[in-house]
């Protein structure tokens, strides 16, 4: 579990609004809950000026939010050419401030041998690639490539942000029961509903991965982090710990906690810098700036 120094919902909203420095977002889904709900959230959270290029391997009708609709094809080279015709050239993108989002609705159609090349060619600072991978689609692997990683392993390795969508279940037994039924393609009621579980894995530049689980509702667009019981009870103990210790009030009220959680901490901003170890410093009007400061940021 990751550190609790910031609010997981803010991190998730930053990922969905494409504010995080992750040029490739992988969405893993199953027949129990398809990843289209995440696409809707991204289209809603992203800036209006974002150009969305939708590559369709299985979507029958063009979604409302898509600027360009590209039909998927088996040849990765042809597909790449088709997508790049809607994207600015590397020269143009240097001067362009607008963002581009390429959505691939089913990356399983692209062979494991060409998926890496496609992602490296598309993802860049100005172009975010969002690909849905259906984990229910088995993949045929040639016997000579038995020890080569599968597409899913390669994609998981490459993606700085991974969003895994699952149907919402109350306990592990219900989840296992659902999985065994879906394996036989026996669809129980209540699948693909507006309430689902979302597991966010976000890799920081340091290499540390933060993982959070959310209970999401696509109708009201809410993302409530699911905290384990241990973390919740620790919080209660903290408030009791301060009682009677000093004459000062060291406790924080619920309102204060909520306000604290909403703060977008500077380290989230620092992830977008090209150089490591940068200090985020916002100069204020009363600050005394010394030109010959020996502790000045060398970058």
């Amino acid at each position, binding site marked *: 579990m990751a550190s609790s120094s910031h609010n997981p919902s803010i991190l998730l909203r930053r990922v969905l609004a494409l504010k995080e420095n992750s040029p490739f977002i992988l969405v893993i*889904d*199953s*027949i129990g809950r*398809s990843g*289209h709900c995440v696409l*809707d959230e991204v289209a809603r959270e992203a800036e209006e000026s974002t150009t969305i290029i939708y590559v369709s*391997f*299985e*979507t*029958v*009708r063009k*979604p*409302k939010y898509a600027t360009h609709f590209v*039909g*998927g*094809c*088996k040849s990765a080279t042809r597909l790449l050419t088709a997508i790049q015709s809607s994207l600015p050239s590397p020269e143009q993108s240097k001067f362009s401030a607008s963002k581009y989002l390429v959505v691939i609705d*089913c990356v*399983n*159609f692209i062979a494991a041998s060409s998926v890496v090349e496609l992602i490296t060619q598309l993802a860049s600072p100005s172009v975010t690639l969002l690909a849905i*991978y*259906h*984990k*229910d*689609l*088995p*993949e*045929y692997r040639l016997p000579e490539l038995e020890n080569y990683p*599968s*597409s*899913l392993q390669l994609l998981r390795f490459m993606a700085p942000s991974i969003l895994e969508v699952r149907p919402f279940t109350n306990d592990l037994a219900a989840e296992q029961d659902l999985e065994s039924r*879906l*394996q*036989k*393609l*026996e*669809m*129980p*009621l*209540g*699948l*693909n*509903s507006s309430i689902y579980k979302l597991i966010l894995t976000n890799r920081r530049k340091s290499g540390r991965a933060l993982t959070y689980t959310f209970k999401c509702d*696509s109708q009201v667009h809410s993302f409530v982090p699911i905290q384990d019981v241990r973390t919740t009870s620790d919080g209660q103990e903290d408030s009791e710990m301060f009682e009677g210790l000093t004459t000062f009030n060291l406790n924080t009220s619920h309102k204060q906690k909520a306000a604290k959680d909403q703060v977008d901490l500077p380290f989230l901003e620092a992830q977008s810098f090209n150089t490591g170890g940068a200090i985020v410093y916002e100069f204020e009007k009363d600050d005394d700036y010394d030109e010959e400061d020996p502790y000045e940021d060398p970058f």
Partner: protein
Amino acid sequence: MSAVQKQELSLFSDHSVLTKALFQQNEHHVIYVTHKLGTSPSWLMNALIETQVFGSPLSLNESHASAVNHASSRVPVQRSGFSSNGRRKAATIASWIHDSEFFHTALGKLKIDPASYQIQDYLTDFVLKNHGKPASRVLKSLVEELTSTQSQSDLLLLEQPELLMHLLNVSSDELHLDFINPLARAVPLMVIVSYTESHENPGAEALEHLAHDLIEQIRFQTGCVFKSIAVLGIKPLATGRAKDVTGTLTITRGGAETSHLAIDIAENEYLFHTQKDTTKLFYR
């Protein structure tokens, strides 16, 4: 069973079987029907065609006696572009496991005028006609045949198109990209019927090795679930055989987005009983 328990079939939250919202301009949707050993989907396919022709699945909803009484007075609903002289059909059926005679007999019993539907028989002579031709050309000609003005209709039913993978030696991805996708984008509503007995999907993360054919079969059927707005699953009773119940029909949402539609899928589970030529639905 008493008549009180009898249910009327509805797939959408507006209590309709095939809602009008599906047939708006530039709308394209897929519905997936799965069935297992011992539970034939013919009655459900007939009910969908009947809905398209008469506006509701009369033979499924009515009692047998009243269905016989009202059979002569059935009037097809008027749709845009549809006329009884056959210029535009209510439905097109393409089957790889039944010949045209099978459908003519079944739909004839429901008093559906043969001029209101079109049958593409891909069981008889399919191999003889296409032997030696490249698979891509065969798929292209099939798409052209099914979307030609002569057979164009609002509802296209494909019965077990997965057999094309074995008949033409194509992969599931090729079948989806070159056959299912172009058809789905050409017709307002496409219904795919698949046989899913012995479907056992270990998923992409499983370490076990499956036969190539089996992987393609699973990929095709799972791909159809992701494309559909609704999945209609027919299966026998899990508890075994019963005298008054043949199986269950489960209506669930599929993987495709439905937020653009004003109405939702009416998820439900029915029991059904097939006796001679009639099928009735009951509360679960």
